[in-house]
Protein backbone atom coordinates (compact mmCIF):
# COMPACT_ATOMS: atom_id res chain seq x y z
CA UNK A 1 0.00 0.00 0.00
CA UNK A 2 1.95 2.98 -1.16
CA UNK A 3 -0.73 5.63 -1.19
CA UNK A 4 1.61 8.43 -2.14
CA UNK A 5 2.91 6.59 -5.22
CA UNK A 6 -0.62 5.63 -6.22
CA UNK A 7 -1.93 9.17 -5.89
CA UNK A 8 1.04 10.83 -7.53
CA UNK A 9 1.14 8.37 -10.44
CA UNK A 10 -2.38 9.41 -11.41
CA UNK A 11 -3.74 5.86 -11.27
CA UNK A 12 -7.23 5.14 -9.93
CA UNK A 13 -6.92 4.97 -6.14
CA UNK A 14 -9.01 2.91 -3.73
CA UNK A 15 -9.12 3.69 -0.02
CA UNK A 16 -11.39 2.45 2.73
CA UNK A 17 -11.84 2.76 6.48
CA UNK A 18 -11.03 0.72 9.55
CA UNK A 19 -12.68 2.02 12.69
CA UNK A 20 -11.21 1.03 16.05
CA UNK A 21 -13.87 -0.26 18.47
CA UNK A 22 -14.43 0.64 22.12
CA UNK A 23 -12.12 -1.23 24.48
CA UNK A 24 -8.94 -3.21 24.11
CA UNK A 25 -10.22 -6.08 21.94
CA UNK A 26 -8.57 -5.51 18.58
CA UNK A 27 -9.35 -8.87 17.00
CA UNK A 28 -12.04 -7.43 14.71
CA UNK A 29 -9.76 -4.67 13.41
CA UNK A 30 -6.95 -7.17 12.84
CA UNK A 31 -9.21 -9.56 10.98
CA UNK A 32 -10.46 -6.75 8.74
CA UNK A 33 -6.89 -5.61 8.12
CA UNK A 34 -5.93 -9.11 7.02
CA UNK A 35 -8.84 -9.25 4.58
CA UNK A 36 -8.05 -5.82 3.09
CA UNK A 37 -4.29 -6.35 2.83
CA UNK A 38 -3.16 -5.96 -0.78
CA UNK A 39 -6.67 -5.09 -1.97
CA UNK A 40 -6.71 -1.33 -1.39
CA UNK A 41 -4.18 1.51 -1.69
CA UNK A 42 -4.82 3.01 1.71
CA UNK A 43 -6.88 2.66 4.87
CA UNK A 44 -8.26 5.46 7.02
CA UNK A 45 -7.85 4.50 10.65
CA UNK A 46 -10.46 6.78 12.12
CA UNK A 47 -9.78 8.64 15.35
CA UNK A 48 -12.64 8.69 17.89
CA UNK A 49 -15.13 8.77 15.02
CA UNK A 50 -18.58 10.25 15.69
CA UNK A 51 -17.08 11.80 18.85
CA UNK A 52 -17.32 8.39 20.52
CA UNK A 53 -14.47 7.32 22.81
CA UNK A 54 -12.63 4.37 21.26
CA UNK A 55 -9.16 2.93 20.97
CA UNK A 56 -7.04 5.72 19.46
CA UNK A 57 -6.00 5.88 15.84
CA UNK A 58 -2.27 6.04 16.61
CA UNK A 59 -2.32 2.87 18.75
CA UNK A 60 -4.33 1.04 16.11
CA UNK A 61 -1.96 2.18 13.35
CA UNK A 62 0.97 0.84 15.37
CA UNK A 63 -0.78 -2.55 15.67
CA UNK A 64 -1.45 -2.61 11.94
CA UNK A 65 2.25 -2.01 11.31
CA UNK A 66 3.07 -5.05 13.45
CA UNK A 67 0.81 -6.97 11.10
CA UNK A 68 3.11 -5.87 8.32
CA UNK A 69 0.72 -3.47 6.70
CA UNK A 70 3.08 -0.54 6.19
CA UNK A 71 6.71 -1.20 7.13
CA UNK A 72 7.87 2.35 7.75
CA UNK A 73 8.26 4.39 10.92
CA UNK A 74 5.07 3.84 12.89
CA UNK A 75 3.50 2.97 9.57
CA UNK A 76 2.07 6.39 9.31
CA UNK A 77 3.00 8.14 6.10
CA UNK A 78 -0.37 9.60 5.35
CA UNK A 79 -2.54 11.83 7.47
CA UNK A 80 -6.12 12.81 6.78
CA UNK A 81 -6.99 16.10 8.42
CA UNK A 82 -10.59 16.88 9.45
CA UNK A 83 -12.25 19.16 12.02
CA UNK A 84 -13.83 16.24 13.84
CA UNK A 85 -17.13 15.73 15.56
CA UNK A 86 -18.17 17.93 18.46
CA UNK A 87 -18.09 16.23 21.90
CA UNK A 88 -21.78 16.83 22.57
CA UNK A 89 -22.64 14.71 19.51
CA UNK A 90 -20.77 11.70 20.91
CA UNK A 91 -20.72 9.61 24.06
CA UNK A 92 -18.60 11.92 26.27
CA UNK A 93 -20.73 15.03 26.18
CA UNK A 94 -18.89 16.64 29.08
CA UNK A 95 -15.49 16.54 27.40
CA UNK A 96 -13.82 19.85 26.58
CA UNK A 97 -13.66 20.65 22.91
CA UNK A 98 -10.29 22.06 21.96
CA UNK A 99 -10.10 23.26 18.35
CA UNK A 100 -6.91 25.19 19.05
CA UNK A 101 -6.09 24.46 15.40
CA UNK A 102 -8.71 24.20 12.69
CA UNK A 103 -8.23 21.76 9.80
CA UNK A 104 -6.55 24.34 7.54
CA UNK A 105 -4.16 25.28 10.34
CA UNK A 106 -3.36 21.62 11.06
CA UNK A 107 -2.60 21.02 7.37
CA UNK A 108 -0.36 24.10 7.48
CA UNK A 109 1.32 22.76 10.64
CA UNK A 110 2.06 19.36 9.07
CA UNK A 111 3.44 21.13 6.03
CA UNK A 112 5.69 23.14 8.35
CA UNK A 113 6.90 19.87 9.91
CA UNK A 114 7.54 18.40 6.46
CA UNK A 115 9.69 21.48 5.88
CA UNK A 116 11.60 20.92 9.14
CA UNK A 117 9.84 23.33 11.50
CA UNK A 118 7.26 23.01 14.23
CA UNK A 119 4.16 25.15 14.57
CA UNK A 120 6.08 27.77 16.56
CA UNK A 121 8.80 27.96 13.90
CA UNK A 122 11.46 26.02 15.84
CA UNK A 123 13.76 23.82 13.81
CA UNK A 124 13.24 20.03 13.95
CA UNK A 125 16.00 17.42 14.15
CA UNK A 126 14.81 15.39 11.18
CA UNK A 127 11.78 16.32 9.11
CA UNK A 128 8.49 14.50 8.76
CA UNK A 129 7.37 13.35 5.34
CA UNK A 130 3.61 13.09 5.61
CA UNK A 131 1.26 12.99 2.67
CA UNK A 132 -1.61 15.19 3.78
CA UNK A 133 -5.17 14.47 2.75
CA UNK A 134 -8.24 16.56 3.48
CA UNK A 135 -11.98 16.26 3.07
CA UNK A 136 -14.61 18.12 1.12
CA UNK A 137 -18.39 17.95 0.98
CA UNK A 138 -19.26 17.96 -2.73
CA UNK A 139 -23.03 18.33 -2.37
CA UNK A 140 -24.59 20.97 -0.12
CA UNK A 141 -28.09 22.19 0.60
CA UNK A 142 -27.25 25.91 0.53
CA UNK A 143 -25.26 28.07 -1.89
CA UNK A 144 -23.25 29.44 1.01
CA UNK A 145 -22.14 25.94 1.98
CA UNK A 146 -21.25 25.01 -1.62
CA UNK A 147 -19.16 28.14 -2.04
CA UNK A 148 -17.50 27.74 1.37
CA UNK A 149 -16.56 24.15 0.55
CA UNK A 150 -14.88 25.21 -2.69
CA UNK A 151 -13.11 28.18 -1.09
CA UNK A 152 -11.85 25.98 1.74
CA UNK A 153 -10.74 23.28 -0.68
CA UNK A 154 -8.62 25.88 -2.43
CA UNK A 155 -7.29 27.15 0.89
CA UNK A 156 -6.46 23.61 2.07
CA UNK A 157 -4.48 23.01 -1.13
CA UNK A 158 -2.64 26.29 -0.68
CA UNK A 159 -1.38 25.16 2.76
CA UNK A 160 -0.42 21.62 1.74
CA UNK A 161 -3.35 19.24 1.11
CA UNK A 162 -2.40 16.79 -1.63
CA UNK A 163 -5.58 14.75 -2.04
CA UNK A 164 -9.23 14.86 -0.97
CA UNK A 165 -11.70 12.27 0.17
CA UNK A 166 -15.34 13.32 -0.09
CA UNK A 167 -18.55 12.86 1.85
CA UNK A 168 -20.63 9.94 0.52
CA UNK A 169 -22.14 10.65 -2.89
CA UNK A 170 -25.37 9.12 -4.30
CA UNK A 171 -26.20 11.60 -7.06
CA UNK A 172 -23.93 11.37 -10.08
CA UNK A 173 -25.05 14.65 -11.67
CA UNK A 174 -24.53 16.61 -8.44
CA UNK A 175 -21.01 15.21 -8.14
CA UNK A 176 -20.34 16.05 -11.78
CA UNK A 177 -21.37 19.68 -11.14
CA UNK A 178 -18.99 19.81 -8.19
CA UNK A 179 -16.10 18.30 -10.13
CA UNK A 180 -16.60 20.77 -12.97
CA UNK A 181 -15.67 23.50 -10.51
CA UNK A 182 -13.11 21.53 -8.47
CA UNK A 183 -11.19 20.31 -11.53
CA UNK A 184 -9.40 23.66 -11.77
CA UNK A 185 -7.55 22.81 -8.53
CA UNK A 186 -5.87 19.82 -10.24
CA UNK A 187 -5.75 17.74 -7.08
CA UNK A 188 -6.74 14.04 -6.77
CA UNK A 189 -10.29 13.61 -5.46
CA UNK A 190 -11.43 10.24 -4.07
CA UNK A 191 -15.22 10.10 -4.15
CA UNK A 192 -16.90 8.79 -0.99
CA UNK A 193 -19.10 5.68 -1.18
CA UNK A 194 -21.24 4.30 1.65
CA UNK A 195 -23.05 1.08 0.65
CA UNK A 196 -26.73 1.26 1.66
CA UNK A 197 -27.81 -1.44 4.09
CA UNK A 198 -31.49 -0.64 4.45
CA UNK A 199 -34.21 1.90 3.76
CA UNK A 200 -33.95 3.04 7.38
CA UNK A 201 -30.25 3.75 7.02
CA UNK A 202 -30.81 5.82 3.88
CA UNK A 203 -33.56 7.83 5.54
CA UNK A 204 -31.46 8.28 8.69
CA UNK A 205 -28.55 9.67 6.67
CA UNK A 206 -30.82 11.98 4.67
CA UNK A 207 -32.19 13.38 7.90
CA UNK A 208 -29.07 13.50 10.04
CA UNK A 209 -25.87 13.42 8.01
CA UNK A 210 -24.85 16.73 6.49
CA UNK A 211 -24.08 16.52 2.78
CA UNK A 212 -25.60 13.07 2.25
CA UNK A 213 -28.57 12.98 -0.13
CA UNK A 214 -29.89 9.53 -1.06
CA UNK A 215 -32.42 9.93 -3.91
CA UNK A 216 -35.90 8.36 -3.57
CA UNK A 217 -35.24 5.95 -6.48
CA UNK A 218 -32.40 4.32 -4.58
CA UNK A 219 -34.49 4.13 -1.41
CA UNK A 220 -37.28 2.46 -3.45
CA UNK A 221 -34.80 0.04 -4.96
CA UNK A 222 -33.65 -0.94 -1.47
CA UNK A 223 -37.26 -1.20 -0.30
CA UNK A 224 -38.21 -3.61 -3.07
CA UNK A 225 -35.06 -5.72 -2.79
CA UNK A 226 -35.36 -9.22 -1.34
CA UNK A 227 -31.65 -9.50 -0.59
CA UNK A 228 -30.84 -6.08 0.90
CA UNK A 229 -27.15 -6.84 1.23
CA UNK A 230 -26.74 -7.82 -2.41
CA UNK A 231 -28.77 -4.82 -3.60
CA UNK A 232 -26.86 -2.41 -1.35
CA UNK A 233 -23.58 -3.65 -2.77
CA UNK A 234 -24.93 -3.56 -6.35
CA UNK A 235 -26.00 0.05 -5.95
CA UNK A 236 -22.56 0.91 -4.53
CA UNK A 237 -20.81 -0.87 -7.41
CA UNK A 238 -23.01 0.95 -9.92
CA UNK A 239 -22.25 4.30 -8.28
CA UNK A 240 -18.53 3.58 -8.37
CA UNK A 241 -18.76 2.85 -12.07
CA UNK A 242 -20.80 5.96 -12.80
CA UNK A 243 -18.50 8.18 -10.74
CA UNK A 244 -15.06 6.80 -11.45
CA UNK A 245 -14.43 8.69 -14.66
CA UNK A 246 -15.17 11.97 -12.92
CA UNK A 247 -12.35 11.71 -10.38
CA UNK A 248 -9.15 9.90 -9.44
CA UNK A 249 -10.33 7.38 -6.90
CA UNK A 250 -12.91 6.04 -4.54
CA UNK A 251 -13.07 6.04 -0.74
CA UNK A 252 -15.32 3.30 0.63
CA UNK A 253 -16.83 3.86 4.07
CA UNK A 254 -18.26 0.42 4.75
CA UNK A 255 -19.52 1.18 8.31
CA UNK A 256 -19.52 -2.41 9.61
CA UNK A 257 -19.25 -4.05 6.19
CA UNK A 258 -15.44 -3.75 6.02
CA UNK A 259 -15.13 -7.46 5.24
CA UNK A 260 -17.34 -7.01 2.17
CA UNK A 261 -15.06 -4.37 0.64
CA UNK A 262 -13.07 -6.88 -1.52
CA UNK A 263 -16.38 -8.27 -2.86
CA UNK A 264 -17.60 -4.76 -3.66
CA UNK A 265 -14.35 -3.97 -5.46
CA UNK A 266 -14.82 -7.11 -7.56
CA UNK A 267 -18.40 -6.17 -8.41
CA UNK A 268 -17.16 -2.72 -9.47
CA UNK A 269 -14.40 -4.42 -11.49
CA UNK A 270 -11.71 -2.62 -9.49
CA UNK A 271 -10.10 -5.82 -8.21
Amino acid sequence: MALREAIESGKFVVTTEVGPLKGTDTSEVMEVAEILKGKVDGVNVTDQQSAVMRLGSLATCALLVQKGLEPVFLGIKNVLVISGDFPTLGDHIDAKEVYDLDSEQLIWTINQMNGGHDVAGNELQGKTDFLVGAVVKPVSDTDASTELQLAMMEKKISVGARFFQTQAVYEVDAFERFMKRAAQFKVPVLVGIIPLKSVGMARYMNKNVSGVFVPEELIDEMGKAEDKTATGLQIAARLINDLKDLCQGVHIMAIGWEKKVPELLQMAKLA
Partner: protein
Amino acid sequence: MLRSEQKPFDEIQGYLEGEKKVFILGCDGCAQSSQTGGMPQVLAMKELLEGAGKKVTGHTVIDFLCQKALVASRLRPLEDQVMEADSLLVLTCGVGVQSVGAMVQKPVHPGCNTISLGGSRGEWRGTERCLECGDCLLHYTGGICPLTACSKGLRNGACGGASDGRCEVSPEKPCGWELIYERLKEVGRLDQLKQFIPPKEWNKQRPRPELLSTSLWALEQRNESSEEGRG
Protein backbone atom coordinates in the same frame (compact mmCIF):
# COMPACT_ATOMS: atom_id res chain seq x y z
CA MET B 1 -16.83 46.34 30.82
CA LEU B 2 -14.82 45.14 27.87
CA ARG B 3 -11.26 46.29 27.84
CA SER B 4 -9.56 46.98 24.54
CA GLU B 5 -6.27 48.21 23.17
CA GLN B 6 -5.57 49.71 19.79
CA LYS B 7 -4.11 47.49 17.10
CA PRO B 8 -0.73 48.55 15.73
CA PHE B 9 -1.22 51.21 13.06
CA ASP B 10 0.58 49.05 10.47
CA GLU B 11 -2.05 46.33 10.91
CA ILE B 12 -4.86 48.87 10.50
CA GLN B 13 -3.18 50.30 7.39
CA GLY B 14 -2.96 46.76 6.00
CA TYR B 15 -6.74 46.36 6.40
CA LEU B 16 -7.29 49.57 4.43
CA GLU B 17 -5.04 48.58 1.55
CA GLY B 18 -6.74 49.30 -1.76
CA GLU B 19 -9.27 51.60 -0.08
CA LYS B 20 -9.23 55.38 -0.35
CA LYS B 21 -12.05 56.56 1.87
CA VAL B 22 -12.89 55.55 5.41
CA PHE B 23 -15.37 56.53 8.11
CA ILE B 24 -14.10 56.33 11.71
CA LEU B 25 -16.41 55.27 14.50
CA GLY B 26 -15.64 55.38 18.22
CA CYS B 27 -17.55 54.36 21.34
CA ASP B 28 -18.20 56.38 24.47
CA GLY B 29 -18.66 53.24 26.56
CA CYS B 30 -15.90 50.79 27.39
CA ALA B 31 -13.63 51.94 24.55
CA GLN B 32 -13.72 55.49 25.89
CA SER B 33 -12.62 54.30 29.34
CA SER B 34 -10.00 52.02 27.78
CA GLN B 35 -8.77 55.16 25.96
CA THR B 36 -8.93 53.33 22.67
CA GLY B 37 -12.08 54.66 21.03
CA GLY B 38 -13.19 57.89 22.68
CA MET B 39 -13.20 61.18 20.76
CA PRO B 40 -9.49 61.95 21.44
CA GLN B 41 -8.46 58.57 19.96
CA VAL B 42 -10.85 58.94 17.01
CA LEU B 43 -9.35 62.35 16.20
CA ALA B 44 -5.79 61.01 16.57
CA MET B 45 -6.64 58.13 14.22
CA LYS B 46 -8.15 60.58 11.73
CA GLU B 47 -4.90 62.54 11.69
CA LEU B 48 -2.81 59.37 11.25
CA LEU B 49 -4.96 58.12 8.39
CA GLU B 50 -4.99 61.48 6.63
CA GLY B 51 -1.21 61.55 7.02
CA ALA B 52 -1.16 58.15 5.31
CA GLY B 53 -3.09 59.58 2.35
CA LYS B 54 -6.60 58.34 3.20
CA LYS B 55 -9.71 60.47 2.96
CA VAL B 56 -11.71 60.38 6.18
CA THR B 57 -15.28 60.94 5.02
CA GLY B 58 -16.49 61.50 8.55
CA HIS B 59 -16.19 60.40 12.15
CA THR B 60 -18.32 60.14 15.23
CA VAL B 61 -18.48 58.60 18.68
CA ILE B 62 -21.63 56.79 19.81
CA ASP B 63 -22.46 56.10 23.46
CA PHE B 64 -22.70 52.33 23.20
CA LEU B 65 -21.76 50.72 19.90
CA CYS B 66 -22.94 47.38 21.26
CA GLN B 67 -26.50 48.70 20.95
CA LYS B 68 -27.55 48.20 17.35
CA ALA B 69 -30.57 50.50 17.65
CA LEU B 70 -28.32 53.33 18.85
CA VAL B 71 -25.85 52.67 16.04
CA ALA B 72 -28.62 52.92 13.45
CA SER B 73 -30.24 56.05 14.88
CA ARG B 74 -26.97 57.91 15.48
CA LEU B 75 -25.54 57.09 12.07
CA ARG B 76 -28.68 58.06 10.16
CA PRO B 77 -27.90 61.82 10.09
CA LEU B 78 -24.38 60.95 8.87
CA GLU B 79 -25.56 58.52 6.20
CA ASP B 80 -23.96 60.44 3.32
CA GLN B 81 -20.54 60.40 4.98
CA VAL B 82 -20.85 56.72 5.86
CA MET B 83 -22.01 55.69 2.39
CA GLU B 84 -19.26 57.72 0.70
CA ALA B 85 -16.62 55.66 2.53
CA ASP B 86 -15.24 52.36 1.20
CA SER B 87 -15.37 50.96 4.71
CA LEU B 88 -15.70 51.77 8.41
CA LEU B 89 -12.87 51.63 10.91
CA VAL B 90 -14.39 50.86 14.30
CA LEU B 91 -12.43 51.73 17.42
CA THR B 92 -14.15 49.56 19.98
CA CYS B 93 -14.48 46.06 21.37
CA GLY B 94 -15.40 43.05 19.23
CA VAL B 95 -19.08 43.44 20.06
CA GLY B 96 -19.14 47.00 18.74
CA VAL B 97 -17.46 46.05 15.45
CA GLN B 98 -19.97 43.25 14.93
CA SER B 99 -22.97 45.38 15.76
CA VAL B 100 -21.82 48.06 13.28
CA GLY B 101 -21.25 45.32 10.68
CA ALA B 102 -24.80 44.13 11.24
CA MET B 103 -26.29 47.63 10.78
CA VAL B 104 -24.21 49.09 7.94
CA GLN B 105 -23.86 47.48 4.52
CA LYS B 106 -20.14 48.23 4.28
CA PRO B 107 -16.97 46.34 5.18
CA VAL B 108 -15.95 46.96 8.79
CA HIS B 109 -12.40 46.83 10.14
CA PRO B 110 -11.59 46.40 13.83
CA GLY B 111 -9.21 49.07 15.09
CA CYS B 112 -8.75 47.41 18.47
CA ASN B 113 -8.08 44.06 20.07
CA THR B 114 -10.37 43.18 22.95
CA ILE B 115 -8.30 41.78 25.77
CA SER B 116 -9.33 39.27 28.34
CA LEU B 117 -10.34 40.21 31.85
CA GLY B 118 -10.68 36.53 32.70
CA GLY B 119 -14.47 36.56 32.76
CA SER B 120 -17.14 38.94 31.56
CA ARG B 121 -18.48 41.60 33.83
CA GLY B 122 -21.69 43.52 33.54
CA GLU B 123 -21.45 44.67 29.95
CA TRP B 124 -24.53 45.64 28.02
CA ARG B 125 -24.67 43.30 25.05
CA GLY B 126 -26.94 42.48 22.16
CA THR B 127 -26.70 39.15 20.39
CA GLU B 128 -23.11 39.67 19.28
CA ARG B 129 -20.47 37.96 21.38
CA CYS B 130 -16.79 38.79 21.87
CA LEU B 131 -14.43 36.21 23.35
CA GLU B 132 -11.91 38.88 24.33
CA CYS B 133 -9.31 36.89 22.40
CA GLY B 134 -6.82 39.74 22.18
CA ASP B 135 -6.28 39.35 18.43
CA CYS B 136 -9.39 40.52 16.59
CA LEU B 137 -10.10 38.70 13.30
CA LEU B 138 -13.24 40.61 12.34
CA HIS B 139 -11.53 42.25 9.35
CA TYR B 140 -11.27 38.85 7.66
CA THR B 141 -14.73 37.58 8.48
CA GLY B 142 -17.07 40.33 7.41
CA GLY B 143 -17.47 41.69 10.93
CA ILE B 144 -18.92 38.43 12.29
CA CYS B 145 -16.77 36.72 14.91
CA PRO B 146 -15.86 33.14 13.93
CA LEU B 147 -14.83 32.34 17.50
CA THR B 148 -18.31 33.00 18.85
CA ALA B 149 -20.63 32.63 15.83
CA CYS B 150 -19.16 29.19 14.95
CA SER B 151 -19.75 26.57 17.66
CA LYS B 152 -16.32 25.10 17.01
CA GLY B 153 -14.66 28.51 16.79
CA LEU B 154 -13.07 27.61 13.46
CA ARG B 155 -10.99 30.42 11.94
CA ASN B 156 -10.62 29.32 8.33
CA GLY B 157 -14.08 28.16 7.34
CA ALA B 158 -17.03 25.91 8.09
CA CYS B 159 -16.69 22.37 9.45
CA GLY B 160 -19.06 20.97 6.83
CA GLY B 161 -21.57 19.76 9.38
CA ALA B 162 -24.32 22.30 8.80
CA SER B 163 -27.70 21.27 7.42
CA ASP B 164 -29.96 23.82 5.72
CA GLY B 165 -27.74 26.53 7.14
CA ARG B 166 -28.20 25.38 10.75
CA CYS B 167 -25.29 24.48 13.06
CA GLU B 168 -24.82 20.76 13.72
CA VAL B 169 -23.82 21.39 17.33
CA SER B 170 -26.67 23.80 18.16
CA PRO B 171 -29.38 23.47 15.49
CA GLU B 172 -31.27 26.39 17.04
CA LYS B 173 -28.62 28.74 15.65
CA PRO B 174 -27.42 29.43 12.11
CA CYS B 175 -24.05 28.19 10.87
CA GLY B 176 -21.71 31.06 11.73
CA TRP B 177 -19.62 30.52 8.63
CA GLU B 178 -22.64 30.63 6.32
CA LEU B 179 -23.47 34.00 7.93
CA ILE B 180 -19.89 35.12 7.32
CA TYR B 181 -20.14 33.99 3.69
CA GLU B 182 -23.40 35.88 3.16
CA ARG B 183 -22.01 39.05 4.75
CA LEU B 184 -18.76 38.94 2.75
CA LYS B 185 -20.83 38.47 -0.40
CA GLU B 186 -23.06 41.40 0.53
CA VAL B 187 -20.11 43.77 1.01
CA GLY B 188 -18.18 42.46 -2.00
CA ARG B 189 -15.31 40.88 -0.08
CA LEU B 190 -15.60 37.17 -0.90
CA ASP B 191 -11.87 37.16 -1.70
CA GLN B 192 -11.30 37.20 2.09
CA LEU B 193 -12.39 33.53 2.16
CA LYS B 194 -9.14 32.59 0.46
CA GLN B 195 -7.01 34.29 3.09
CA PHE B 196 -5.35 31.70 5.34
CA ILE B 197 -5.58 32.62 9.02
CA PRO B 198 -2.51 31.11 10.73
CA PRO B 199 -2.75 29.33 14.11
CA LYS B 200 -4.07 31.69 16.69
CA GLU B 201 -1.94 33.10 19.48
CA TRP B 202 -4.09 31.73 22.28
CA ASN B 203 -1.66 33.15 24.79
CA LYS B 204 -3.22 36.53 24.07
CA GLN B 205 -6.52 35.25 25.42
CA ARG B 206 -5.16 34.79 28.93
CA PRO B 207 -5.92 37.67 31.27
CA ARG B 208 -2.86 39.70 32.20
CA PRO B 209 -2.18 39.65 35.95
CA GLU B 210 -2.31 43.42 36.23
CA LEU B 211 -5.81 43.44 34.74
CA LEU B 212 -7.07 41.11 37.45
CA SER B 213 -5.95 43.60 40.07
CA THR B 214 -8.64 45.68 41.73
CA SER B 215 -8.46 48.28 44.43
CA LEU B 216 -9.80 45.66 46.84
CA TRP B 217 -7.07 43.31 45.73
CA ALA B 218 -4.48 46.05 46.30
CA LEU B 219 -5.87 46.65 49.78
CA GLU B 220 -5.66 42.95 50.63
CA GLN B 221 -2.09 42.83 49.41
CA ARG B 222 -1.19 45.82 51.59
CA ASN B 223 -2.87 44.32 54.68
CA GLU B 224 -1.13 40.99 54.14
CA SER B 225 2.27 42.60 53.82
CA SER B 226 1.73 44.81 56.88
CA GLU B 227 0.65 41.74 58.90
CA GLU B 228 3.79 39.98 57.79
CA GLY B 229 5.77 43.06 58.86
CA ARG B 230 4.24 42.87 62.36
CA GLY B 231 5.18 39.21 62.70
